[in-house]
């Protein structure tokens, strides 16, 4: 007689798996990747390839020889980390920088906590911060994108310069009014939206990032809560500050479109493992990221602040999860 399967209910399963979710994140990153390839050519391809291969390899080796479990790189989570890390670096970074970042991100931040789902910090953002504090010169060596859109500094290889955020920060530190800083006041909203001068490989175009965001939301990989709240918080806070003194504080659109706010809020802050489970918790988490980002930008030493903001809020996630319970059915409010 045929042996049938017996198992507890339910007997069917949705076709979403960790692999398909991570695959969707990679697809959502594709527009940004294409844009950065367009602007930076082979160096962008090189960065992403090294990042992905290094992350997968490190994870594979650690799982196989250190943890002695079945390697699970086919769930694509390491590939996502590698891709995000590469897109978070200056486009002209040397190859070994990505490699070091990948080893730290996977080896220290992810696997030492027990692998996927166990880490406290987002591996890609922690890897980036690690590189930022270890190799500050390399990590702030930005290239101005050479593009068909920008006629000012067009050159095929790009021109090294500081990011608009850094320029604005330095100007404020020197007491120069912002209206006299060309890199800030000369920036049009079109430039900020479609591409911008200086920045990490992946955040050149806000439009491409927003396309990725829409894809993730439509595919129900993420809920829009976290990115929307982060961006709204930053917009409102910087709006208030710049209204008080536009010469001293940068404006909302500038703050949103520069310094990895979009990349961070869409792809890094929404990382399942290191963000809260409930909508209420996610709002608190995202609000915290927004506030800390603006505070670091206005009053801190670093020109951008998203990475640190995300890392700091990552620490609070277990606590947020503990206190932000979902609404129970039948609960009297």
């Amino acid at each position, binding site marked *: 007689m045929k*042996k*049938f*399967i*017996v198992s507890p209910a339910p007997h069917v399963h949705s076709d979403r798996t960790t692999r398909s979710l991570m695959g969707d994140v990679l697809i959502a990153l594709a527009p940004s990747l294409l844009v950065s390839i367009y602007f930076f050519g082979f160096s962008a391809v090189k960065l992403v390839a090294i990042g992905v291969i290094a992350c997968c390899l490190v994870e594979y080796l650690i799982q196989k020889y250190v943890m002695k479990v079945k390697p699970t790189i086919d769930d694509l989570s390491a590939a996502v980390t590698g891709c995000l890390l590469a897109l978070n670096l200056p486009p002209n970074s040397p190859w070994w920088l990505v490699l070091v970042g990948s080893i730290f991100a996977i080896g220290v931040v992810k696997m030492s906590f027990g692998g996927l789902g166990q880490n406290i910090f987002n591996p890609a953002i922690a890897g980036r911060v690690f590189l930022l504090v270890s190799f500050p010169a390399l990590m702030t060596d930005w290239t101005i994108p050479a593009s068909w859109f920008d006629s000012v500094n067009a050159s095929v290889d790009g021109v090294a310069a500081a990011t608009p955020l850094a320029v604005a920060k330095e100007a404020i530190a020197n007491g120069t009014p912002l209206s006299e800083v060309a890199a800030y006041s000369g920036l049009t909203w079109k430039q900020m939206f479609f591409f911008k001068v200086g920045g990490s490989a992946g955040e050149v175009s806000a439009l491409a990032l927003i396309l990725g965001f829409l894809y993730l939301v439509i595919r129900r990989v993420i809920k829009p809560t976290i990115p929307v709240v982060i961006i709204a918080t930053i917009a409102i806070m910087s709006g208030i500050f710049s209204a008080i003194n536009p010469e001293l504080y940068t404006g909302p659109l500038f703050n949103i479109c520069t310094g990895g706010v979009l990349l961070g809020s869409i792809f890094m802050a929404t990382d399942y493992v290191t963000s809260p489970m409930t909508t209420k918790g996610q709002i608190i988490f995202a609000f915290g990221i927004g506030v800390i980002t603006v505070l670091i930008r206005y009053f801190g030493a670093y020109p951008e602040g998203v990475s640190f903001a995300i890392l700091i809020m990552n620490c609070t996630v277990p606590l947020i999860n503990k206190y932000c319970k979902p609404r129970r059915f039948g609960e009297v409010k």
Partner: protein
Amino acid sequence: MTGTILFTIACLVALGLLFSVVLYFVAQKFKVEEDPRIGIVESIMPGANCGGCGHAGCHAFAESVVKAPSMEGFFCPVGGNATMSKVAQALGRAVEEKEPMVAVVRCHGTFDNRERTNHYDGYASCKVMAALYTGDTGCKYGCLGKGDCVDACNFDAIHIDQRRGIAEVDESKCVACGACAKACPKGVIELRPKGFKGRRVYVSCINKDKGAVTRKACAVGCIGCGKCVKECQFDAIHVENNVAYIDFTKCKMCRKCFDACPTKAIWAVNFPPRPAAPAVSPAPAPAPAVEKPAEAPKSE
């Protein structure tokens, strides 16, 4: 420069002194008075905190023993008689020797003996499986082989052999704490006396179905035929609900039932190979089971 260093050192020393004084007074104020004998008893205990004695751990056991008027009802299965006599000595009491016990899995429904009738595809836990249905074989009573007992064991003494699909006890490691017996949803595991040189005779089946049903489900099941009952001269075996049970308090290990059992559901383990002469000769070293029926437990 020197001044700064000196100042720092002075500060730290002052703080250290201040805190030590505070700590001293707090410790005095909140001191918990405990019978010193509890500590002594606890130091004698094996410290496995397994709960096999029925207390929440070694400390709880020590507390209860010290408070109790006698040693009655207290037994540490891990430390056994040696530990208990030490405890009794420490408390100045008398203690009775207890026979050492061992966990016995009363099922040999291996993959070969017991055909699988369906395929279980859920969380690998006997408890989950038992809550769902009677199991993946024709036998409703036997070992499910998903290893709840393995998880329960603190001593690495019970394992599921993946090729055989049933739980097997490693006698040398088993301390008879009974955790596995408690964890088994089917009640397959029983604590039985270890016996002289580990020799035991037991019915390795708890199938309560009628003989024909049992025989169909499992090659080594007890069919309740009662042949062993007739063979036994000590009134140690009884058949109830179609399954025989050997009362270990009455069994004299003559092994006549073992020879009589038509399905080899009765097991006699750790006996020396039976020579022509039936006289019980002091056997050298632990010997394997007699005439292994089908296959003998690996560890024995």
